[in-house]
Each structure stands twice: as C-alpha cells, then as structure tokens.
C-alpha cells in the first residue's frame, strides 16, 4: 500500500479515535450534568479515570481476563481501522461482535454471579442491536450497491435523503452501543444497579482501563458509520453523527432502564420495522 495522503489521513484518524472517544465521553458527562442542573466534571475527566485505573493495583481473577481485555481493545481498534481505511462495513460489524465476545468470555471466566449475569445480558444486548445494524448496512448496500465504505462515500445523493428511517434506527443502535438507558441492562457506566457493574464487575486496574478505552473506540466507530449518511460533505456527516450523540444523552436522561424483554421488543420493532418500511418505500418509488 503506497503511503499517499488519504492513507496518512486514515492512520491519523485511527490514532486519534481513542482520544476523540475520551473527549466525547467527557462531553457526555458534562452534558448529562447540565441536563440534571449540575456543574459536571472537567472535560478530560475520562482520561483521569483511565490513567488512575491504569496505575491502580490490579486484582486479576484468572489468566484469561487480562488477555480478553487486551483482545477487546484490539478487536475494537481493528473494527475502527476498517472504518478509518474505508474498507468493508460488514467486516466492521463482525469484528465488533468479536470484541463483544471477548468481553463476555472475560465476564464468564470469573466465578462471580454478577459478572456472569452481566455477560448473559451482554449477549442479549448484542442480539438486540447487531441484527438491526446488519439490516441498516444491507439497506445502505441496496441503495449504493456496495458494502465498501469508499464506494458508499462515492455515491452522490446523501443517504439521509433516501434512508431517513435508517438514520432514526441508528439512534437506537447508538444508545445500545453507548450502554445508555433505557438499554443499559448489561452494565451501565455511572449508575448503581442491581448487578453491581454487570459485565464490568470483575475488571479492575489496567484491565478496566483497557475495556474503557475499547468502549470509547467502539462508540467513535459507530458515530463514523452514522457520518456516512451525508458522505458528500463530511462536515454535515459529522453534524449528523453529533446530533445522534446528543440525542442518545437526552434519551439516557429521559428514560428509565427497561427489562431485557422490553429492550429486545423495542429495538427489534423500531429497528426492523422502520428499515423495512423505508426499503419498501424506496422499492415502490423505483429507486432500488
């Protein structure tokens, strides 16, 4: 691969992704605090948290756990690289799934009922958003004729005009991906809950720091996918992605946590329903 300008931009974007994610999480905590009429922590608070966790004495439950934490971050970065280098959307989705599986294996490996139940619920979280995301990607490929991000970006009409319902569905996917209410059954970021910290319970010290950074990267990857909805102008695409990010925080502050049954019902009805209606409309309109 020749080292031309676009490759360099891709490498810089990939390297900046964890930092972007950290800043976004800081914005998230700040916005949440403002919505609750509080001041909120400084913007770089997530970096303080991760550095502190990194320096803390690790309590490792078994040998698999640190390996899985590294692999979680590794697969998250791999999925991010598929987006940064404008490769395959489907590969991105399946690599993200692998990262999730690493998290679940780490949760299952410890003999703790909390992390065990958290892991099982993480499976349900995957079940709730991944088929929906897959359908959105299939819709994108039906319109543009390709799964390769480079090809999607070369498509002239902005996707938002053709697939507005899929954009709304991405809001649901993003809320699930960010582990926000009402879909934070497997382990939420900042609230007390019945599972202690769910799937994160048994992580401590540097393993928790790795998982945290992996989560940031996954969120930024998902936002980059949302940005594809207005690919001709990257600034409008970024604005669209940030709109969904703020929307996710708003939804988090408005809705209480759902049970997993209702989470599945909600994501599947909204997700499949809207995308299929959108595709039917396009097909009757003669676009696809």
């Amino acid at each position, binding site marked *: 691969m020749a080292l031309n300008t676009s490759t360099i931009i891709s490498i810089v974007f990939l390297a900046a992704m964890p930092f972007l994610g950290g800043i976004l999480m800081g914005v998230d*905590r700040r916005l949440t*605090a403002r919505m*609750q*009429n*509080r*001041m*909120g*922590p*400084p913007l770089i*608070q997530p*970096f*303080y*948290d*991760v*550095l*502190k*966790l*990194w*320096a*803390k*004495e*690790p*309590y490792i439950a078994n040998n698999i756990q640190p390996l899985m934490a590294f692999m979680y971050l590794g697969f998250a970065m791999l999925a991010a690289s598929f987006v940064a280098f404008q490769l395959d959307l489907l590969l991105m989705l399946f690599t993200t799934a692998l990262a999730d599986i690493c998290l679940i294996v780490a949760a299952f490996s410890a003999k703790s009922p909390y992390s065990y139940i958290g892991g099982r619920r993480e499976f349900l979280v995957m079940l709730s958003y991944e088929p929906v995301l897959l359908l959105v990607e299939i819709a994108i490929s039906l319109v543009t004729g390709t799964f390769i991000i480079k090809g999607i970006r070369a498509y002239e009409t902005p996707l938002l005009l053709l697939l507005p319902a899929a954009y709304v569905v991405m809001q649901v996917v993003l809320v699930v991906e960010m582990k926000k209410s009402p879909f934070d059954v497997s382990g939420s970021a*900042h609230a*007390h*809950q019945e599972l*202690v*910290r769910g799937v*994160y*319970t*048994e*992580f*401590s*010290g540097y393993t*928790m720091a790795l998982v945290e950074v992996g989560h940031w990267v996954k969120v930024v990857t998902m936002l980059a996918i949302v940005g594809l909805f207005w690919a001709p102008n990257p600034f409008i695409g970024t604005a669209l992605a940030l709109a969904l990010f703020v929307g996710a925080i708003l939804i988090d502050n408005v809705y209480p946590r759902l049970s997993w049954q209702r989470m599945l019902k909600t994501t599947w009805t909204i997700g499949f329903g809207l995308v299929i209606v959108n595709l039917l409309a396009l097909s009757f309109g003669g676009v696809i």
Partner: protein
Amino acid sequence: MGLIQKSQLKSPWVLHFDCGSCNGCDIEILAALTPKFDLERFGIVNIGDPKQADVLLVTGPANKRNHRVLKNLYNQMPQPKLVIAVGTCACTGGVFHNCPNVLGGVDNVVPVDVYVPGCAVRPEQIIDAVVLALNKLAGLAQSEEEE
C-alpha cells in the same frame, strides 16, 4: 506532580457501605451526590464495585454480624485505598457504643484515614473529608518520592 498521581487525585471513586447506621448519614452521602452539592465536579462517582473503588465510605457502628462483610469489602479494594468513617457511630460507636452486639467504631475492624463526626453529618463535611483524604494520599505519594 506526575500525570498518574494527578489522575488519582482527580478521580476518587467512592464505595458506600452501610454498617447498620440509622440511614441518616447515608441520606447525607446521597445528598452530597445530588445537584445541589454535585460531588461529580471533583470526579467523584458512587461506584458499586469494590474492585474499582478508591474510597470506602462507612456509616454506622461495626457489629458482630457485619464486621466480616466490612473486612471483606476492604480486602477486595485494590491499593491505593482510603477509608472514611462517616458519622459519630462509624467513628466511635456513638449512642450504640455499649450495646452487647456492637464492636464500636469501624476502626476496630479496618484502618480509618479520616473521621467525620456528626449526627447526622452534613454533606459539606463529607466533601471536606474526601478532600482531606485526597491530601493524605498526595502526601503519601510525596513521601514515597522523597524516600
């Protein structure tokens, strides 16, 4: 001051354990997390997981039933860690000090860094205690560097 040490001072995650208090101090701890006092300004998050917590806030006197739980929670917290006894009961046993089932203050079970007297304590005092505890942590790191 190094970056890591600064992070440690900027992000104390709190674990709250009720040793059988009357809930007065617990309510004040929760009050400190509400919008009026907003502990999250200092990066303080109430985390349920001892494996990720930095500061243990204990309310109520240690008694013969729960001192094992308290000890267990303390042992599950990784270093560096701090313990704050919140309220008169947690400091000395308070009005329960001579009950047959009460061991006295929580310092009979785990080493305490900061004592916060009061029945019930005020949220401002809890914030002050956490800041004091962090100063102690900074001092510990400083003396280690000097050695």
